[in-house]
């Protein structure tokens, strides 16, 4: 049902963009829109699907293949500790660890072809195109800095996050409907953090960025879920007592029900 709703919104966004596309040629080169700006987390939330739509202006003689599009979605920042296991006296124990500070909790890179084909490595790094070209700052002593891409901790971090589905790299995630109109589907996991998600769309041709568009959506808790999450924080002690009393009540009801 939620999906059908998202599709309706997407269709509306598409209709709006079609109108924009017909605007005069001196308009912006790239126009994007996201199917919803608020993803609501309720008691049956198991993830969501959003659609990013975009049109390329000034493309009277556009053909499929002339332009490339990269859509990057970044979730709220969070810090992570990555631990490495090693063998000590025959036992597998954590031997080393690194902290990645304030890296995206969600990162999706969607493009119409593999990002490494879109330009020189230097160009890709400068414009943060592709998963590995993002900045993953590590806490090194008192300093915070990113390290070389082949660093074992850095590549392990990306590998594990990708396996969890929190980081996504999809070289066919952007599809051209017409030479001027494209869409990208963004999958949000049920474990997504609440907060602001940035959507950055780059229009690329021949190793240069022709245009850049930013938009955003937010993931928010609603109803009972929001109430519990807020109360657990705002009135922590009362919340604790309430849960403890609920535990006693649950135990009491059960012993009443099962009394012979």
């Amino acid at each position: 049902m939620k999906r059908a709703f998202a599709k309706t919104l997407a269709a509306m966004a598409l209709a709006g963009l079609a109108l924009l596309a017909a605007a005069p040629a001196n308009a912006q080169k790239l126009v994007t829109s996201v199917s919803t700006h608020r993803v609501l987390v309720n008691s049956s939330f198991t993830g969501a699907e959003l659609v990013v739509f975009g049109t390329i202006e000034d493309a009277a003689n556009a053909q499929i293949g002339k332009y490339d599009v990269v859509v990057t979605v970044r979730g709220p920042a969070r810090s992570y500790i990555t631990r490495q296991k090693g063998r000590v006296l025959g036992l597998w124990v954590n031997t080393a660890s690194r902290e990645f500070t304030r890296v995206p909790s969600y990162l999706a890179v969607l493009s119409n072809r593999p990002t490494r084909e879109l330009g020189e490595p230097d160009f890709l790094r400068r414009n943060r195109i592709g998963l590995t070209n993002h900045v993953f700052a590590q806490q090194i002593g008192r300093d915070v800095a990113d390290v070389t891409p082949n660093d074992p901790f850095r590549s392990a971090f990306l590998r594990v996050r990708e396996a969890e589905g929190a980081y996504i790299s999809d070289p066919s995630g952007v599809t051209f409907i017409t030479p001027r109109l494209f869409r990208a589907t963004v999958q949000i996991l049920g474990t997504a953090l609440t907060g602001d998600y940035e959507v950055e769309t780059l229009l690329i041709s021949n190793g240069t960025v022709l245009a850049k568009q930013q938009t955003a959506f937010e993931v928010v808790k609603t109803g009972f879920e929001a109430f519990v999450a807020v109360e657990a924080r705002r009135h922590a002690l009362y919340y604790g007592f309430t849960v403890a009393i609920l535990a006693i009540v649950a135990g009491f009801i059960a012993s009443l029900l099962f009394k012979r």
Partner: protein
Amino acid sequence: MPIYLPIADLPINIFLILGLGAAVGFISGMFGVGGGFLMTPLLILIGIPPAIAVSTVPTHMAASSFSGTLSYWQKKLVDQSLAFILLGGSLVGTWGGVWFFSLLRRLGQLDLFIAIAYIVLLTGVGGMLSFESIRAIVRSWRGTPAALRRPGTHAWFHGLPLKLRFRQSRIYVSAIPVVVIGLAIGFLGAILGVGGGFLLVPSLIYLLRVPTTVAVASSMFITLMTMLLATVLQAAQNHTVDAVLGLTLMVGGVVGAQFGTRAGQAIRAEHLRFLLGLLILGVAARVASDLIHVPTELFSIIPVERLR
């Protein structure tokens, strides 16, 4: 059917949680243990963040031990004076354990220490329980009378001062070993994130010679008190108690505990101890296999807990 957990921030199958609560509640009611040493690793296994699991499990243990305690209390099986002295010792021990916990975390070897402590303790307690109960079972097969309580024999701590008579337990013993057991249980409980019932029941039975049913009932009462306290403290300090997860576990847990309590009373004491011993050995084997097997992924990622 998925349900969204508002503090853990993830959706999970409600029937999985209900079933888990019922299964652990059954074991908890049967053996008079909190079941934390089973529930915490199981929750982490199905994807609940460890910090949420450790602080939400006490809510479930409080609920299932309340319904169990109530039925033991009505049968006058809880030795109140013994329970309160143990409780006092365990509160001090918990404080010491929390301090030692942060020391180990600074040294960076907390995981290893916890795993080894689990294996040593579980193997020791589980092995002792199963070995002793097998002897008792064999003895009852042969028809020789049980020689568990020999009136003439005294352990060294029976010579200590401050002797008290514990009526329900039918023991006359110094308060010092009782406080020491309480201290040790509180200390280990804080470090391992468990209620400590699986250590308390055997210590009461084998060290203090408390009858099995009184040991189980008193241990359950102590578990109830410490778990209620843990719930409030974790909620106030760390904001990591997930009410939805806790309530779902409770509903399964209290039902399971009722059946467990009855099953525990229907089974002969030495068979009960043998089963508990096997269960504890099983968990020890599981923890040990994680340390010995080559992991498929050498790296693991955990979010730094946001002190929101």
